């Protein structure tokens, strides 16, 4: 399917922005997202093709606006909900609980 991720040859994205001495991860949570997704993949909770596809079928505006590891994060959350591992309600409840602690 031809969707927003199929970027080869698209026009209008501008100059390539490079960062000198770029760290492997820009935030601690980025490494955590990568690791959680890899463990979930290794454990067979979903497969690599499904994981790419869940990102590729995001609405174009979401796909383009999310930084890379946020796309991984939202893809993982969506995948686990679709597979019945962590429901959207369960995730929302845990998030509310942790926000309560944090504030």
């Amino acid at each position: 399917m031809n969707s927003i991720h199929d970027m080869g040859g698209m026009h209008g994205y501008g100059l390539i922005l490079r960062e000198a001495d770029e760290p492997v991860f820009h935030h601690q949570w980025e490494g955590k997202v990568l690791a959680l997704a890899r463990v979930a993949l290794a454990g067979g909770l979903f497969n690599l093709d499904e994981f790419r596809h869940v990102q590729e079928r995001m609405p174009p505006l979401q796909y383009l606006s999310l930084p890379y590891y946020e796309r991984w994060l939202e893809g993982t959350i969506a995948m686990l909900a679709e597979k019945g591992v962590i429901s959207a309600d369960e995730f929302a409840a845990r998030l509310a609980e942790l926000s309560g602690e944090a504030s």
Partner: protein
Amino acid sequence: MTSDEEVALRVRALESLLLEKGLVESPAIDEIIDLFENRLGPQNGARVVARAWSDPAFKARLLANATDAIVELGYEAVQGEDMVVVENTHAVHNLVVCTLCSCFPWATMGLPPVWYKSAPYRSRAASDPRGVLVEFGTAIADEAEVRVWDSNAELRYMVLPERPAGTDGMGEDELMALVTRDSMIGVTKALEAPAS
């Protein structure tokens, strides 16, 4: 836009649920982060390139079957992907991209830089590679052929940069210092030998 604190909280929520359900364990998470932060990276690819520059038999094996040749140096594919190494010469300049996302030779180069995963690079490397090379300050002769390799989940490409002039007497460690991540993606050439 989501603030970093909000994102970090979403990650904590995900992690805590997976831990609670026994689907992940903390040591496995730490191990993966350590692997990508400390053990995988372009220093591995630089070793492969320096060996290929120094050892013609290794270079021949690398170009014939990169997956097996890099294992000789102890660099295993992270998720079973195959590797192909393409050689830059005066006549041919190779450039690697992943137009669909972010595929990259993890075993030899670790995780890709942000620009490699960005829309400007992914879109333009395929349609205007010479323009991209100019943007990286890389001069390629008009008569040289430019080849673009589009990576995918099963097949990862790495460029064997051209060995710089004036490096004949150099050992592998000295050569390694001239091999940059960007030269193995093909957006730049290897560094020039320091003037002696």
